[in-house]
């Protein structure tokens, strides 16, 4: 499933990042979205977008549009 489909407080593991946007893929993996990484949806912004993700011991916010490119599996 896609990262954007997860709900608040759900945990997931990164499977892969969509290849269609090379520069975005590179940035996301630099930021720590690498295969097998365990992440948590901490919260969704009051207006429904963006979302806050906790990974590698820090918090990152990204829009659903970008989160759609990240394939995850629930854990």
């Amino acid at each position, binding site marked *: 499933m896609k990262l954007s489909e997860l709900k608040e407080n759900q945990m997931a593991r990164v499977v*892969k*990042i969509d*290849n269609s946007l*090379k520069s*975005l*893929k*590179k*940035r*996301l*993996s*630099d*930021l*720590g979205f*690498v*295969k097998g*990484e365990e992440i948590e949806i*901490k*919260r969704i*912004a*009051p*207006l*429904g*977008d*963006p979302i*806050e993700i*906790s990974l*590698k*011991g*820090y*918090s*990152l*916010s*990204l*829009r659903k*549009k*970008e989160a759609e490119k990240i394939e995850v599996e629930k854990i």
Partner: protein
Amino acid sequence: MDSTNLERNLYLTLLLMEMEKPMVIALNMFDEFEKSGYKIDLDKFRKYLGVDVVPTVATKDKGLKELIDKAIKVAKSKKQYRKMEYRLLFDKFIENEIDGLVEKLKKEELPNKYPLRWLAIKLIEKDEYVIQILKKEIGKDISPLAKEHIMAIEERFDDDTETILTEARYGIINGILKDVLKKPKNYNIPFTEKLDKIVTNKYLGLPIFFALMYIVFKLTFDGSGPFIDWVDGFINGYIGKYVGLAFSSAPHWIKSLVIDGIIGGVGLVLSFVPLMMFIYFFLALLEESGYMSRAAFVLDKIMHSIGLNGKSFIPMILGFGCNVPAIYATRALENEKDRKLTAVLVPFMSCGARLPIYALFTSVFFVKYQASIVLLMYVLGIIVAIGVGLLLKNTKPFETAKSPLLLELPPYRIPSAKMLFSSTWIRTRSFLKKAGSIILLAMVVLWAVINLPSGSSPDNSYLAKAAKTVAPIFAPTGFDRWQTVASILPGVIAKESVVGALGQTLGVEEKSEKEKASFIEDSREQILGLTRAVIDSFKNMFGSLTPGVFEIESISNSTFSQKIKSVFTPLSAFSYMVFMLLFIPCIVTLAAIKQEFGWGLMFFEIGLLTVIPYIVSTVIYQGGRLLGFH
């Protein structure tokens, strides 16, 4: 690096180490690191990295001396100066491919400032930037050399090389940290968690943001107001008066150039200093505490719809007080295109200095609806900003729609006073230095246009002559009398001067008090004035609830009002107000844009802020006439 977030911070360190430059690592915020229960084996850590590591606490000056000493030592040891031994190797298969490419690169003539292993890695990662730079430097594209190695790695690991190497780096980092770092059992930060639950709450998030913005807005503009008035009085009333006396025997035009042009210009620049200091202080507070990122998180959806991101909201709001600090506040935005678009839209926010114009015209023509008309101006500015944002967001130089929001939400921290004040001072100083000179120059040029030839009456100056020539162009907007056209240019100096300029071109005499000169008494008055400013500033900040910027002073000069009625109709007055709302706010705003973004964007802004007000005023005047207004 931030020691409380080693895994993420080491990634950049690793990239830097691949460049084989000598380095010393500062493990900053080490106090927080220890307090939250982390333990690190520094000796082992140093051995892994092959680099010296110094724990520091920058806010408390801890470890800084040791850090600097070690950095000097490393820089001086000649052996290591150009190259650092790199110890953190990738997987054997990848290293073999890198070595293979390095052998090929050895045969090429390459600038020896780049380590070959690093070049090989970048080529394997298909790094566009490095490939382009090399092409420029050696006049040849060497990226095909890497092709075979890229294919070998991609086949083996079934992904693209960029991702494989990134994953491999994080793998190396995890390996090291597993061995040297002991994490506390519960390593999330409870205070940040709790505060975020409130601050980004579904129902409270937006109200909290608006409440905080309101407080910052009020404290900034009301707190700095009395100091601005004092600086203005000190330079123009006090310094200007005595310089004027010193020049009393000089020709009139020299005296006017010195007092109105130069001292006026210096006064204009300096009068912004209190405002800049207040705004920079509060911006630093918002940034350093960590709230700025939350504001962006909460508001992103709204701002994204016009091509901006959540952080653009803050400059926009500040723009209602004054556009100048708002332009500088765009520094909070990371993405250059977001910054530019925000800066372009800021001037449409109706600043406090435009109020006297609205006050004058509404009190002459729209007494009954004064408040509604003024409110309408603010709304109109916002609507035009949204329109221009929508138009520009898909154009090449701004293209913000495509840039992703990847925003780190750092833990909340209490900023140190030292940090806040030094940030305030550094930014204010840079405003004085960089914007100051441009403003001064422009002031002298504008002075010449408005006041020359010397001794001429208001309808004989170069400005009046030019206005008479240009006036027909303004026919569609309804205010095409030369007097009204001539009042536009002084508005570029500062919007406050428009009312005075109209008074001058319409021949309204200003009441001038007889000046008595007593240097000692005046000096004492200035010092007393400064003390009063401090008291008033506190009173303003904490004494009342509404921001003073929005107070409208009514103009009750009946001859002035008669003269205004002789050159404006209600409809053309409204059209003129709209023009002034959308026109170049002032030369200080332009100087700020030049300082932050360069000449190109400044001229673009001048064009935009001339064409748009002309079009909108024309539409309003012509539309109004069709609807039967006059």
